[in-house]
């Protein structure tokens, strides 16, 4: 039982690190702010929740209580923060990526609320 828990915690740590790395690579590689937001909002929250689950498997009473609180709070607030950021980007008329073809000729055809 102990060994199974340890292996599961290790696998969760590796998975969480992988997803967090993808999220951080996302903010470097994505072409505009909106795609960066969708890369990190999902990736970072999922990676942290995997790490918290690993700590939960390896921990005892107080650790489990706090780990559940952190995981629940992150799962609730990550979409809210991403929505607020995307809304701020849209209201401040951030340029939107339209694909490789139109990138050469920026037409500025995006219609915002002003």
């Amino acid at each position, binding site marked *: 039982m102990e060994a199974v828990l340890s292996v599961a915690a290790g696998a969760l740590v590796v998975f969480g690190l992988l997803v967090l790395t993808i999220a951080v690579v996302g903010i470097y590689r994505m072409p505009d702010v909106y795609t960066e937001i969708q890369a990190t909002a999902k990736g970072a929250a999922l990676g942290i929740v995997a790490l918290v689950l690993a*700590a939960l498997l390896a921990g005892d009473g107080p650790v489990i209580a706090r780990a559940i609180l952190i995981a629940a709070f992150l799962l609730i*607030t990550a979409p*809210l*923060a991403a929505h607020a950021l995307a809304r*701020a980007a849209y209201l401040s008329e951030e340029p939107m990526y339209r694909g490789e073809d139109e990138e050469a000729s920026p037409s500025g055809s995006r219609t915002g609320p002003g």
Partner: protein
Amino acid sequence: MDTLIDIALVWLVVLLGACAVRVVGARSTVARILALDTLVLVLIGLLVLYSASRGVSYFLDAALILAILGFVATLAAARYYGRGRLFG
């Protein structure tokens, strides 16, 4: 398991540095706020893993407070930048 957690801690510090570089060199203000938000999330993961490796729970208190503060800060900065005011 201990070696794995040590490697994971080092790797998280590398990710933290990558986020910090992105905060400095962001293309726009929203991208900068997003990079700061990601940096706080990576820091929460670092605290959680450190707490698991030491077997103590008080680092998780710091992680929880950091999660709350990071969320409120991101929300306030995004709302202020997008609409010019915080409320209403």
